C-alpha cells in the first residue's frame, strides 16, 4: 500500500459523459444530453470527497463513469497513478476488485433470492480471494462482524433484515473484496436518522482502519460536513465550486453554493431560516445556455454571465466557476 499522501489516488480530468438523443426510424442522433460536461477533481488516498448537487446534475453519472460502468465521452480517469480511461474490460478486471460501489436503495441492489452469505460471498469467489466453500463462509462471517451484523444470520434472505441492516450487508459486500476506493451513491439517504448515524460512524471507522478512499455522492448537505474532507459542488454537468469542507461551508463563494447552503432547513430552535428567494428551474443538460449555467437563477447575475462561460478560477483556498471569483482574483 502506498503511503504517499500527496499524489492523488483518484483523479479525473475534463471528464465528459454525453448520452445521445436518438430520433426517427434510423435512430439518428439529433443531440446529446451532456450529463457530465468537463469535470476535474482529485481525491487523495484515505480521504473523502463529497460530490453534491441537485437531482439531475450528473453526480451519479460521474460516479459510474469513474468506475467505468458507463463509457466516458472525453477526458481521462486516473486510478492509483494509472490511466484507466480506455482500458479493455479484461484489463479492468483486476482493478474492479480495488474499486467498489454502494447504492442508495439496499432493497433493490440485493438479489431477493440470494442468501446473504452468497451475496457477500459472490465477489470473494469471483475474484478468487477464497475458493473453497468453507473459506468463503469464514470470510463472509468476518466481514459481517466488521459491519456489526450477526454472522449467524448469513443463511437468511435480504427481506428478513431491516433497511439499515441491508445497507450494512451492501457495505460488507463491497468491503469483502478488499477495495481501496469506494463510491457511495446516496447510500444513506433512504435511512432513518438514528440508523444514518450508525452507518456514518461505521463508514468513518472503516476509513480510518483500512485507509479507504471515498467518493460520497449526495444531495444531503447535512451529512457532508460530518463525513467529507473536501466538497465538490456540481451544477448541470459541471463543477461550480470545489474546496475543503470547512472553506465551502464557512465561506462559500459561488452563488449556487450559497443558495444551496441557505436552503438547508435550520436546526436551531431559536431561529428559523429566512424566506428563500424564488428561483427558476434548472436548465436542461441537452441544451445548456451559452453563458454561465447558473445565470438564469443567479441573484448576482450581470450581462457577461449570459454570453460567456466562466472557468474554474483558482482562488486562494478553493476553485470557483464564477466571474465574481475572477474579479476577486485579478483585484488581489
Amino acid at each position: 500500500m502506498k503511503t504517499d499522501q500527496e499524489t492523488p489516488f483518484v483523479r479525473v480530468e475534463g471528464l465528459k459523459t454525453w448520452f445521445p438523443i436518438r430520433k426517427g426510424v434510423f435512430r439518428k442522433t439529433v443531440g446529446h444530453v451532456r450529463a457530465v460536461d468537463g469535470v476535474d477533481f482529485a481525491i487523495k488516498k484515505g480521504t473523502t470527497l463529497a460530490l453534491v448537487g441537485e437531482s439531475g446534475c450528473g453526480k451519479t453519472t460521474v460516479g459510474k463513469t469513474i468506475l467505468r460502468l458507463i463509457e466516458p465521452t472525453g477526458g481521462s480517469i486516473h486510478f492509483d497513478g494509472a490511466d484507466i480511461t480506455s482500458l479493455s474490460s479484461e484489463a479492468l478486471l483486476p482493478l474492479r476488485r480495488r474499486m467498489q460501489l454502494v447504492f442508495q436503495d439496499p432493497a433493490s441492489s440485493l438479489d431477493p433470492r440470494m442468501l446473504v452469505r452468497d451475496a457477500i460471498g459472490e465477489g470473494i469467489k469471483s475474484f478468487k480471494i477464497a475458493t473453497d466453500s468453507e473459506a468463503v463462509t469464514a470470510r463472509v462471517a468476518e466481514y459481517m462482524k466488521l459491519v456489526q451484523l450477526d454472522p449467524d444470520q448469513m443463511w437468511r434472505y435480504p427481506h428478513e433484515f431491516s433497511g439499515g441492516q441491508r445497507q450494512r450487508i451492501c457495505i460488507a459486500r463491497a468491503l469483502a473484496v478488499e477495495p481501496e476506493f469506494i463510491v457511495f451513491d446516496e447510500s444513506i439517504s433512504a435511512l432513518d436518522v438514528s440508523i444514518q448515524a450508525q452507518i456514518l460512524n461505521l463508514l468513518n471507522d472503516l476509513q480510518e482502519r483500512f485507509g479507504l478512499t471515498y467518493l460520497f455522492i449526495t444531495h444531503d448537505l447535512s451529512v457532508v460536513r460530518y463525513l467529507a474532507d473536501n466538497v465538490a459542488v456540481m451544477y448541470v454537468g459541471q463543477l461550480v465550486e470545489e474546496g475543503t469542507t470547512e472553506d465551502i461551508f464557512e465561506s462559500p463563494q459561488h452563488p449556487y453554493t450559497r443558495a444551496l447552503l441557505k436552503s438547508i432547513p435550520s436546526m436551531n430552535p431559536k431561529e428559523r431560516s429566512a424566506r428563500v428567494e424564488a428561483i427558476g428551474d434548472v436548465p436542461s443538460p441537452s441544451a445548456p445556455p451559452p453563458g454561465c449555467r447558473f445565470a438564469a437563477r443567479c441573484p448576482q447575475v450581470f450581462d457577461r454571465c449570459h454570453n460567456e462561460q466562466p472557468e474554474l478560477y483558482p482562488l486562494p483556498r478553493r476553485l470557483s466557476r464564477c466571474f465574481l471569483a475572477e474579479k476577486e482574483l485579478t483585484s488581489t
Partner: protein
Amino acid sequence: MNELLLDVQNLRTSFPSAAGRVAVVEDISFQIHKGEVLALVGESGCGKSISAMSIMRLVPKPGRVETSARIFFQGRNLLDLDVPDMRKVRGGEIGMIFQEPMSSLNPVQTVGAQVVEAIQLHEKATAAAARDRTVALFKRVGIPDPEQRFDAFPHQLSGGLKQRVVIAMAIAMRPKMLIADEPTTALDVTIQAQIIDLLRELQEELETGILLITHDLAVVNELADRIAVMYAGRLVETAPRQELFENASHPYTQGLLQAIPGLAKKGERLHEIQGVVPPPQEWPVGCRFSSRCPIRLAHCADQPAPEIERSPGHISFCHALEKEAVA
C-alpha cells in the same frame, strides 16, 4: 387559544397478523387548533402515516380503526360519518398532500383537468369558472405561466412544480385543515425550501391547521408550532417546538436529536441509538422503547409508561421521569 379543529382521542389502529390483531397505532391522542401546525415525528414504521390515514378513514383493509377511538373534527366524530359525508370531508374540509407527487397525480390527464375535477367534485362550478379558479390557484402556489401549465401533463413538470400542483389541489376548497405527509421528502433541498415557504404562507393566509408528518427534524423546526414524537405506534413525547428542541426529556427524543449530524465535523462521533425498532409483534408490553433505552429501569418493559407533565403543554411518557418527579 384558537378554535379547536381536530381532537383525536385514543386512536388505535390494528392489522391482523399470525399472532392475532396487532395495534400498529395505539392510544394516540392529540389536538390541532385553527392556524396551528402540529408535527407528528418518528422513524419509518412508527405509525405516523397510519395515524394520518386513520383520521381520513383511508386505512387499507384488513387494517381497521378500533371503535373505541374518537376523531372529532369541528365537533363531529369522523368515525360516525357515512361514506358520502366522509367523501365531502376529504379534499373538502381537510386537504391532503402526500410525499410522492408523481403517484398522487394521474399521469394521463393534464394537471389542470385534475384540479378542475377536484373542484367540481365538491361544488357545482361551470367548466370555465373551475378553470379560472384553477389558474388562480396555480398562480397562488407559484407555478410560472399558469395558463400554459394548465394543459401540461405531470411528466412535463419538474418535481417541485408537481408538488405545487398537488398543493393547489389540496387548498382548492379552502380547507380548514391540511394533512401533509412528508411533503418535501422527495424534493431537492432548494425546492424543499421553496415548498416550506409556500406552506408557511398558506397557513398564515388561510389560517389552516396543518398536521405535518415527517421524519426530518429540520423541516419540523422550520414549520411546526408543536411536535408530537412517536415511537413504535405510541406517542413518547409532545411539546411546543422550541421546548422540545431545547428540553427534550424522553430518552428516545434525546437520542433522535443527538443523532443528527448538524454541525458535527469530521472525526467527531455521532450519537447512536443502539439496536433497531423491533417488529410490531415483538413490541414490549410496557414502554415500547425499553428494549433500546439507555436509562431503562427494572419495570419499564412490563408496565406502560406513565404520562408526566414536564411543563405546561410538555408531556413525556417515561418511567424514569416519574421517579425524578417524585424525588
